[in-house]
């Protein structure tokens, strides 16, 4: 069973995690918990299994419950498996005023899943989320670290194709440089 699995950060991730821990004063290393949970989620298939959270707790020398209680508080941490690309469509006011529901319904139809579900091939999970601070470029969705804004149904189709071709979402929890226009 997965409860007995022991996960460990790769050397590369462990090096990044060490740098993060060094940001805080002596004895305050627990401050690194949220950044490290992000690292764990990126490294261990996009979600935080119990062994993934245990790995972070072990790394920080804190009790596992301290990692669980934090992971369960914040909406970006997935406590269940998700697809390779999680499409998070913003559903709050400005996005709704600009057609976010149409985008959601369109993706549902296109992928044959409902909000909250994952496609059978494990490629896409569809979620609706609260305001992502992209109200002037609504409707929008987030996938991995990227914002896709001013969506139309056509742009949404193109995005799904591009993501499928890419095979995964991009994340920025590590030292990836960001190049945006």
């Amino acid at each position: 069973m997965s409860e007995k699995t022991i996960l460990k950060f790769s050397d590369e991730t462990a090096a990044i995690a060490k740098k993060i821990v060094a940001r805080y004063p002596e004895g305050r290393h627990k401050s690194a918990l949220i950044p490290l949970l992000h690292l764990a989620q990126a490294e261990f298939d996009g979600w935080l299994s119990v062994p993934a959270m245990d790995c972070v707790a072990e790394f920080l020398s804190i009790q596992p419950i301290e990692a669980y209680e934090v992971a369960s508080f914040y909406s970006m941490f997935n406590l269940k498996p998700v697809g390779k690309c999680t499409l998070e469509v913003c559903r709050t006011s400005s996005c709704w005023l600009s057609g976010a529901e149409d985008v959601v319904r369109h993706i549902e139809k296109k992928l044959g899943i409902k909000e909250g579900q994952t496609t059978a091939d494990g490629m896409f999970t569809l979620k609706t989320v609260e305001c992502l601070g992209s109200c002037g470029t609504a409707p929008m969705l987030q996938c991995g670290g990227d914002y896709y804004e001013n969506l139309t149904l056509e742009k949404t189709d193109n995005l799904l194709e591009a993501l499928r071709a890419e095979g995964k979402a991009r994340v920025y929890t590590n030292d990836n440089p960001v190049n945006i226009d």
Partner: protein
Amino acid sequence: MGKKILLANDHIEGIRFLDTYRKNGGYTALEKALKSMTPEQIVEEVKTSGLRGRGGAGFPTGMKWSFLAKPEGVPRYVVCNADESEPGTFKDRYLMERIPHLLIEGMILSSFALGAKTSYIYIRGEYFYVARIVEQAIEEAYAAGLLGKNILNSGFDLDLYVQIGAGAYICGEETALLESLEGKRGNPRIKPPFPAIAGLYGCPTVVNNVETIAAVVPIVNEGGAAYAAVGIGNSKGTKLISASGHINKPGVYEIELGVPVEEFIYSDEYCGGIRNGKKLKAVVAGGSSVPILPTELILNTAAGEPRLMSYESLADGGFATGTMLGSGGFIVMDEDTSIVKNLYTFARFYHHESCGQCSPCREGTGWMEKILHKILHGHGTLADVDLLWDIQSKIEGKTICPLGEAAAWPVAAAIRHFRKEFEDFIRNGEHVNDVKHYYRLNNLTAPIN
């Protein structure tokens, strides 16, 4: 053109990078401060400027700074609140993405003024790529000797780090933010003690919004009096407004405080009028938490004076006929908008974001969402409107943090100004003018816009 202070160099290509930022006057405020000013003088300039917290509360920044305790041998912290999560607000993201060095320079100045040796910028988790942009800018600043030991040979040391959140509106509340920065759940703390006495790791801490910190740069450069000369009344300087909804030109606009609301909505310099030639129905002027106002009250006060984009004018009339400048999240709704459905998205938001610590908020936000859901799906009764009113009145003022008020006010204002629409919705099932809404209710596909 209105006066621009923070975004004056926004149009310059490459302003995100240190070289270009410095070529255009960047880090001159820091040089001036470190060479010729004492920390106390900077605090004085900020007081003189009349700068008020730009995150939403509008508390005078200089006063907040002067509350900071300075016990011997105890570190102090400056923490930047970049957990921008108030629906309708995206100005801090814009500023960090476009001119990250303005924030970094402001952080160094504020840390010098307040005696902090380590400072943090807490950025909401969803802004992954923005955090990376800010981190890259911080790396540039370290390499140029603007951060680290002995900054510009002044003897002042500062380490500056980005901390990333993980999706929680509540962490925009300053004590919840500090909890989160300490690696805990974002449950707001009971105050007092305020962060100025016991903040991060129990040490004296100042928490300020991105835009507030950035404004310290021009205040040091030009002097507090020059900043205070811009604006109107007790609304000094400029404000970044995030404009969204049914307007021709959504985006972030820097306005001189005091611009008439009508000009802001209709002038081509700003929002450019209502999309598709429609009529204006309502505006949420300062982020989802502030009261919604119908056209006649957002354009003019109850006394018939033109309403201005300022702390005082927007608040004129109290909550009976006024609203708040808040975070400057300006959401515009056209004549076809269903106020009931929009309110449902707000109620769902606050229910989702309640931290669960205080019963009135935890339970009340859930009830409000449920009742609105029921109304939207055609099962509402006229008594539900009174029930909503009753619930919101029992949340306000009864919670540890202001999320309670933030959840209650939009419900109260929507009923106060649009009660008839709620009643019509309940009687007739839906808002008849909203064609797209009709399509959605009937599971038909309607085109976007």
